[in-house]
């Protein structure tokens, strides 16, 4: 039972009441008084010359103050929120939502068994008319049972809950609790939070408030001092060494505990074998970086793990990553026999830079190209070569239709008259040479930055394509299904694209050396041709690991070929594609949107088809480093935020009172009447007392 106010803002009037008193008590007269030789005669004059007033009659003062205070209280419309004014019908069952934290941090020491013990105790105390819902939450919340007062059903629900590797988020749990209350008809509502109350689990921006009437009880399993060291991240850098690749791994070890650690062993494992070990000292709350020696990149996908010691929270002591040989992109550059000496030089040199991807460039005269050359290449560049006819044209068309890339550059040698076979593949038909020399060259001004080729240049100061001058380009008559990606300042087409089958064809209407333009001399040239090749080869970087709770886009692996066919082909052909979690749980990917999978466990996931069950593709998952920070938050703060300051965690009475609206409750109690009567009585007493006092003074 507690005193509540219907219009609590009126209580601010009490502050106003105190103001004159406070001013009187603290008021110091202004230092700059008027100097006068002597106050001897002024003091002799009664009343008109006066010292600062002092309170002479405290009793009278108290009477007046009390009267005004009661008046303010009356206007605030007080009522007793817990007063049992209603009949027995409003007594009854409670709607109880138990929020059970199952995040990774609950695995610390014996928190999880204690949490289950607390839950068990709570279930034992449930009355038959109560309705209890158990909500297990980490960064997602899940209702384990329908609201029930049956202890057996609740124990069964409790048996289904297990720890997860996710991070804590209280907001989602309270949100779910609110939705349960919304659907409930019971008026006594309670939320029981069983958690370690991690500070990182509550974001003050997560404004989630429960209905005023809900009471919140907390079971705090946190400990003030913790010991936990985690591998926050691992950086892997590959570099070629001879005909093989090596990788350098460096791990960032974070001490989230409250004590420093010294001589902590940190090991690097690859495919289950320990490669290297080091020790590290990490002060409390700080991080240290461990650099490992270089190691050979294994054939196939290697499973790397960096482990750090062992502590009370083992799940975050290992960091998983994958390492695989870099996938080369094979580029075949074809040029005419009488080509300029450095016609493909700039292109070759530019593509030779970089490892992600590593580009293998082969430059060949067009007349020597074979069917095998075309089939083994990811991207084919016809560098100022007229589109072929006959068998080569068919090979090119097939290459493109099956997902290959083709870049056509127009120059002197490409000519203006292409065979009809070109119309099935080329984004357009070449025209005459446009001379811009007299205008001192043109520039690229209109670029589709939304296209993947130009996406890397979309941010400010990320490569200026307009810096190159174009003295010549060849006109292009665009095919129907093509789109323009870049234009010159005179409106001419610079780059156009056409999709054919699963492949992509680009046409560049100027040379790729310095013959017709100065692009080859610009810094932007290298990333530009790389972006073109990556786009044409449909290359995408696959992540070394995912964080638990994030969504893995398996489409990046769809075009990989672990066995006989790609995953995409297997999926289309009806072959089962299965994702196997670290604990062995298998999920069959049945629909196209299921290429997006939520990562829920830490360890190594495997994507495979039934046909190649032994191999498959592997990706790693790690726990969110945020969850390793075990520092607790102020429970009162959390409860206050959730309840919006309307009550505190010790207030237990809101349930009963909530059956009536607060207005009804206040109206029924009508306490303000009594207060007003009290005011009148006090004022009457004040009149009597003050009259007597003034008479006494006159005498």
């Amino acid at each position, binding site marked *: 039972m507690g005193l509540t106010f219907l219009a609590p803002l009126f209580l601010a009037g009490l502050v106003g009441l105190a103001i004159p008193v406070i001013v009187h008590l603290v008021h110091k*007269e*202004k230092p700059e*008084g*008027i*100097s*006068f*030789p*002597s*106050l*001897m*005669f*002024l*003091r*002799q*004059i009664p009343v*008109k*010359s*006066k*010292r*600062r007033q002092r309170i002479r009659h405290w009793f009278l003062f108290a009477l007046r103050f009390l009267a005004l205070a009661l008046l303010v209280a009356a206007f605030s419309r007080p009522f007793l929120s817990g007063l049992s004014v209603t009949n027995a019908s409003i007594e009854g069952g409670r709607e109880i939502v138990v929020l059970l934290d199952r995040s990774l941090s609950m695995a610390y020491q014996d928190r999880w068994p204690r949490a289950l013990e607390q839950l068990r105790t709570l279930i034992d105390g449930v009355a038959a008319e109560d309705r209890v819902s158990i909500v297990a939450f980490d960064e997602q919340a899940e209702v384990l049972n329908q609201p029930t007062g049956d202890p057996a059903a609740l124990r069964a629900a409790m048996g289904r809950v297990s720890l997860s590797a996710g991070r804590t988020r209280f907001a989602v749990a309270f949100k779910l609790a609110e939705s349960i209350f919304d659907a409930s008809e019971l008026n006594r509502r309670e939320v029981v939070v069983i958690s370690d109350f991690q500070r990182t689990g509550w974001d003050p921006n997560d404004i989630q408030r429960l209905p005023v009437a809900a009471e919140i009880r907390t079971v705090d399993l946190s400990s003030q001092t913790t010991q936990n060291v985690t591998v926050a991240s691992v950086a892997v850098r590959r570099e070629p060494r001879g005909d093989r690749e090596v990788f350098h791994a460096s791990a960032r070890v974070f001490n989230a505990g409250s004590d420093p650690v010294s001589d902590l062993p940190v090991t690097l494992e690859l495919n289950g074998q320990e490669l290297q070990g080091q020790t590290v000292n990490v002060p409390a709350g700080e991080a240290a970086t461990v650099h490992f020696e270089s190691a050979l990149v294994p054939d196939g996908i290697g499973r790397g793990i960096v482990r750090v010691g062992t502590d009370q929270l083992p799940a975050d002591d290992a960091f998983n990553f994958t390492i695989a040989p870099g996938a080369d992109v094979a580029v075949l550059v074809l040029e005419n026999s009488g080509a300029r000496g450095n016609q493909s030089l700039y292109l070759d040199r530019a593509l030779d830079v970089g490892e992600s991807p590593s580009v293998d460039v082969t430059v060949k005269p067009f007349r020597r190209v074979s069917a095998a050359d075309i089939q083994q290449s990811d991207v084919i560049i016809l560098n100022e070569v007229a589109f072929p006819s006959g068998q080569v044209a068919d090979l090119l068309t097939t290459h493109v239709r099956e997902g290959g890339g083709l870049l056509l550059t127009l120059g002197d040698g490409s000519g203006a008259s292409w065979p009809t076979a070109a119309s099935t593949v080329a984004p357009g038909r070449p025209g005459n040479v446009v001379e811009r020399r007299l205008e001192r060259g043109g520039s690229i001004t209109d670029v589709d930055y939304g296209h993947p080729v130009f996406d890397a240049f979309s941010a400010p100061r990320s490569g200026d394509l307009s810096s190159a001058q174009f003295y010549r380009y060849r006109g292009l008559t665009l095919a129907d299904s093509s789109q323009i990606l870049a234009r010159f300042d005179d409106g001419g087409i610079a780059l156009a694209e056409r999709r054919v089958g699963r492949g992509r064809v680009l046409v560049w209407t100027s040379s790729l050396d310095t013959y017709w333009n100065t692009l080859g001399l610009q810094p932007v040239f290298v990333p530009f041709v790389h972006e073109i090749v990556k786009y044409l080869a449909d290359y995408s970087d696959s992540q070394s690991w995912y964080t638990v709770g994030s969504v893995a886009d398996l489409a990046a692996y769809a075009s990989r070929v672990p066995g006989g066919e790609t995953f995409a082909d297997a999926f289309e052909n009806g072959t089962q594609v299965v994702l196997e979690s670290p604990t062995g749980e298998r999920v069959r990917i049945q629909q196209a949107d299921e290429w997006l999978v939520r990562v829920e466990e830490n360890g190594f996931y495997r994507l495979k088809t039934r046909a190649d069950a032994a191999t498959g593709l592997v990706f790693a998952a790690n726990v969110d480093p945020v969850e390793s920070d075990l520092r607790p938050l102020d429970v009162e703060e959390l409860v206050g935020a959730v309840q919006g300051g309307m009550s505190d965690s010790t207030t237990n009475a809101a349930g009963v009172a909530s059956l009536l609206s607060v207005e009804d409750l206040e109206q029924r109690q009508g306490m303000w009447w009594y207060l007003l009567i009290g005011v009148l009585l006090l004022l009457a007493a004040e009149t009597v007392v003050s009259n007597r006092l003034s008479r006494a003074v006159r005498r």
Partner: protein
Amino acid sequence: MVRSRPSAPGARFIDPKILSRISDLELVARTVVDGFISGLHRSPFLGLSIDFAEHRAYMPGDDIRRIDWRLFARTDRFYVKEYEADTNANFVTLLDVSRSMDFASDGMTKLEYAKYLAASLTYLSSKQRDRVGMITFGDNIEAVVPASAKHFDTVLHTLDKLEPVPRGDFASPLRKIAESLNRRSIVALISDLYEDPDVVVEALNGLRFRGHDIVVFHILDPAEIVFGFDESGSYEDVETGDRITVVPDQLREAYQERIQEHRKTLAKRLGENRMDYSFHDTSQPLDHALFAYLSQRQRMSRVR
């Protein structure tokens, strides 16, 4: 139209505001007193404070060189001639230098006015070959210039260096002064007399009973008489630092009544005790003060 000629500078009505700009006290005293004397030429009041030389019968032990042989020739009796120097009086100024004196509503402070008055009186006495001295006091005796015919400059120097001090018990320093003044003197007290008249009279009686001739100059600022302030607010006693909140319009009349009553009481009580009382406000010319004082002395001397 005939216009009256303005008074010569330094003649009669010398404005205190103009005086306040003259820092040389001797010059001020000369200006005031010389103008005053020339204005009262052939005045019967001249030399009032000087006793005439007298003859007395020779007594054994007297220096025979002091026998007036001419008179012996006429009367055949030995008479000793009392020299003028012997009969000259001591003139001691008691100057109240408490902080309340350091107040001015406009122009000259009471203390400055008192300084000029003291300098003028000292100059006047010095011209009459009186021995001049001065004692300044606040809550205690501050400076003492013993009476001497040569101390006019010292008095002026002391006046020049005066600084206001806090006031304490009015009677205490006067009691000490009474004990230190052995020779009968004309004692001129210059003060604003913010004290109960009974206390003032009692303190001065200590001096009078030792044979001193007491003249009281009561100095007040015009603002202290009429209380012409308009601003309501906190008024601070410069002596004690006490403050009271005052609305001048509401108490002006009562204040004026009380200050008048104070003056009357002082005049009455001091008169009853054969002490001269002279009231001055700082807006009055100094020679008015001197004239008023000397007139009163003359009148009173006739009565006595």
